[in-house]
């Protein structure tokens, strides 16, 4: 959301950014204004924590006098395409063209409360509320039209925002005409029904991204693109290592840079300048010394450290009796899997602009949680939260890394100290140093094959990754799944860690699906057939079968030399199966993924093209964590501070990608932004084994590790 979009909606471009919703409604004046009770009728809206979606209809949409419908959502657009798919949902329920929907996103004054855009929840959790609001509005408009046209509601139909009498299409009235000059407040009964799949005209059809023109012309505004006349850009002093304390500092030379303003607030030191590059070069003139970091781990010793730091486990799932399962086993398998830290490295580093005027603050931030930012900023400033407005312009990628908002708090601090509008835009080195990495993790699995060839027991212990994706979907009579992390109040990691696209699930699925393949191989079974025999979940079987058909899977004993691998996974309610083909250079251990086939069942699909794009993005990004991405560090110092050493996927890595989305419109829509990434590590590990007989237990599967695991002789 930016000034231009507001202008198109016909408002004063400068003013609404500081408005609260009530004032906003006063200004917008006429048009359809309804008191609405969505929340009372939709149990989905009962948010379990943190806040509630509003019950006011206008929180979701506004029908203007020009017939355009504004769709308000606290969700943000970070590339996942929800400004298209949410627009489709509203257009569908209101029977209007999507071209007449204007998206107003991530503005805490204008949009309904939202916890944050993560966990692939927009479609499955906000979507139903939005659709309900659209359906309610359509019902009210039909009632108004029935009055106007003097016919019963059931004689009416709607097309492209025009309500007409079914027996006489000339007898019609548009939404714009119905709402023109009116200010109607009415309480809706909550009886409006959202459309069923058989009634869909817009949901389930592919739409191109609605932000295309803005994004290909450079007009799309990201936080760092904002500029105000009195604005200063900040460059912030960072320690060389996490936990290192400032021991001395001399800012004299930096102060001599023309126009540079130095802020020194305890250990927090920054240079501000009207040019960001000059601020950075002035920062480099600061002479600072730091003490040693208290952290003594590095990227090799971290795994032992984590295992030692783990507290008592939390039982995630448990059934049967592991000992009985083991006694019934013909073969017992015991393996440990490792995964290193990964950076989010969005192409847009974190940025925030803060303007404080009197007792009010406006914050523009690259954030996945504008409402969370609002509370954080209010606390930092000691302002009541209604005095803080947060606006999230387009995000240049998030991937779970833009939920904490430290850059916004840095900007708040600097704006408060200087009295100026301040932009903090992290450098790439800031981004790597300050990132909350996907945690390094260990997974220990003991499992058994029963004498009858089935799986006898499953003892899955995950350390530090998290619990998502730790459960399995196989028929195993005796199982236990436990999660270990640092005891409360302690932190085993030498830096911040956090959610990374499908948190924990990439690590857990890598471990689980590798172990399954090891068991299949020992059982002398084909990896696909072994899974089909042992899968408990029928949906997973259908999805795996669809992948196998597309891939052209032919059963073989592994290692077959073909380089085929499978992994199954479940994430954000979506079931996914991936098959890959790799080539492994035996001399170097280099792995090239040649082909990826991915099938998923995500229930109702709103925008098939958008969902496909997300799958492709997951597959491509997944190559990175599986094959190369790893944060190198030592004693709190991050060695990877740019893309020269932190390798993310490039064009030459790209395999042939084929995707299949199973048609399942009668089930609720599930997540789409993350599921397809979770299977990449496991599928590639299994394919490497199939190619050359090398079993890799640690991600990323860099050439050295592959070479070292190659069978001897």
């Amino acid at each position, binding site marked *: 959301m930016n000034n231009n979009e507001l202008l198109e909606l016909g408002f004063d471009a400068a003013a609404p950014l500081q408005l609260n919703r009530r004032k906003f409604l006063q200004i917008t004046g006429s048009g359809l204004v309804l008191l609405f009770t969505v929340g009372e009728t939709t149990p989905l809206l009962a948010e379990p924590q943190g806040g509630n979606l509003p019950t006011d209809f206008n929180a979701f949409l506004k029908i203007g006098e020009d017939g355009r419908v504004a769709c308000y959502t606290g969700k943000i657009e970070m*590339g996942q395409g929800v400004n298209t798919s949410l627009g489709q949902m509203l257009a569908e329920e209101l029977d209007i063209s999507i071209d007449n929907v204007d998206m107003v996103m991530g503005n805490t004054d204008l949009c309904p409360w939202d916890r944050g855009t993560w966990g692939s929840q927009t479609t499955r959790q906000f979507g139903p509320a939005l659709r309900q609001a659209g359906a309610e509005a359509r019902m009210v408009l039909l009632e108004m039209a029935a009055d106007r046209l003097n016919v019963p509601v059931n004689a009416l139909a709607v097309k492209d925002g025009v309500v007409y009498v079914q027996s006489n299409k000339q007898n019609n009235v548009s939404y714009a005409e119905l709402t023109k000059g009116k200010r109607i407040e009415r309480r809706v009964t909550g009886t409006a029904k959202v459309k069923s799949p058989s009634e869909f005209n817009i949901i389930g059809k592919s739409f191109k991204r609605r932000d295309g023109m803005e994004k*290909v*012309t450079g007009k799309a505004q990201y936080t760092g693109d904002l*500029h105000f006349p009195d604005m200063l850009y900040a460059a912030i002093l960072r320690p060389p290592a996490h936990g290192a304390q400032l021991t001395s500092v001399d800012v004299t030379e930096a102060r001599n840079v023309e126009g540079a303003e130095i802020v020194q607030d305890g250990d927090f030191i920054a240079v501000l300048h009207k040019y960001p590059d000059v601020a950075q070069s002035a920062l480099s003139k600061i002479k600072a010394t730091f003490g040693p970091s208290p952290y003594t781990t590095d990227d090799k010793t971290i795994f032992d450290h984590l295992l030692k730091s783990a507290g008592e486990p939390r039982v995630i799932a448990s059934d049967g009796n592991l000992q009985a399962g083991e006694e019934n086993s013909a073969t017992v398998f015991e393996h440990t899997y490792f995964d290193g830290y990964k950076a989010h490295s969005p192409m847009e580093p974190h940025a925030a602009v803060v303007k404080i005027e009197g007792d009010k603050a406006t914050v523009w931030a690259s954030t996945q949680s504008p409402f969370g930012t609002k509370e954080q900023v209010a606390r930092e400033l000691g302002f009541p939260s209604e005095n803080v407005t947060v606006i999230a312009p387009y995000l240049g990628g998030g991937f779970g890394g833009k939920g904490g908002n430290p850059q916004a708090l840095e900007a708040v601090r600097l704006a408060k100290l200087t009295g100026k509008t301040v932009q903090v835009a992290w450098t790439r080195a800031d981004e790597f140093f300050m990132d909350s990495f996907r945690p390094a993790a260990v997974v220990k699995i003991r499992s058994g094959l029963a004498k009858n060839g089935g799986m006898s027991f499953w003892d899955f212990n995950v350390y530090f990754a998290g619990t998502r994706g730790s459960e399995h979907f196989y028929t195993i009579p005796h199982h236990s799944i436990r999660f270990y992390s640092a005891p409360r109040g302690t932190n085993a990691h030498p830096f911040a860690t956090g959610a990374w696209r499908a948190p924990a699930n990439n690590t857990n699925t890598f471990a689980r699906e590798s172990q399954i393949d090891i068991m299949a191989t020992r059982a002398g079974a084909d990896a696909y057939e072994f899974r089909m025999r042992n899968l408990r979940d029928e949906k997973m079987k259908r999805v795996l079968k669809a992948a196998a058909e597309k891939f052209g899977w032919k059963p073989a004993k592994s290692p077959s030399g073909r380089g085929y691998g499978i992994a199954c996974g479940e994430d954000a309610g979506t079931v996914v199966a991936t098959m890959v083909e790799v080539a492994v250079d035996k001399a170097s251990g280099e792995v090239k993924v040649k082909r990826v086939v991915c099938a998923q069942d995500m229930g109702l699909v709103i925008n098939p*093209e958008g969902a496909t794009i997300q799958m492709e993005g997951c597959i491509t990004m997944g190559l990175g964590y599986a094959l190369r991405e790893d944060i190198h560090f030592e004693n709190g110092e991050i060695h990877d501070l740019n893309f*020269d050493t932190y390798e993310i996927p490039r064009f030459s890595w790209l395999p042939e990608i084929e995707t299949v989305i199973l048609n399942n419109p009668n089930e609720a829509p599930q997540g789409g932004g993350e599921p397809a990434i979770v299977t990449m590590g496991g599928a590639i590990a299994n394919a490497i084994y199939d190619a050359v007989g090398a079993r890799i237990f640690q991600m990323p599967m860099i050439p050295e590790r592959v070479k070292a695991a190659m069978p001897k002789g």
Partner: protein
Amino acid sequence: MTETLQFTLNDIDVRVTVDSDRMLLWVLRTDLGLTGTKYGCGEGYCGSCTVLVENQAVRSCQTPVKEIEGKNVVTIEGLLKDGKPHPVQKTFMEHDAFQCGYCTPGMIINACSLLHENPRPSKQQIVDGMENNLCRCGAHKRILEAVQSASKELVGGR
């Protein structure tokens, strides 16, 4: 050193008085208000800051502004002619060849340079030519398809 420099920017003759050692990226983004060109890494690794200088893709974060004196510079904003998108912009939209859109200006500009040099690139030549432009969302497949389509359109249109 503060100097007054003249160059052509998106078909317009401009004159700026700046410290001529500053990088073109920041002069474009701040002094000239053209924010379509993005900062991604600041060291020339990612290509988000790519602009055309004499039809060649250059990394504006590594180009001191003094080096463009008298030259012809085109940024993403300059590709739009009379409100109509350039064929590469058009095919990027047709293929949905972006997600977050942050690397997109650099990708498009780099593709323009590639197609200027080699109007009929093979798929491998496109891969090689785009290799050092980074995208984190994983839009690579569609970007390659968009550049292939743009090549067809540009060659066919002549």
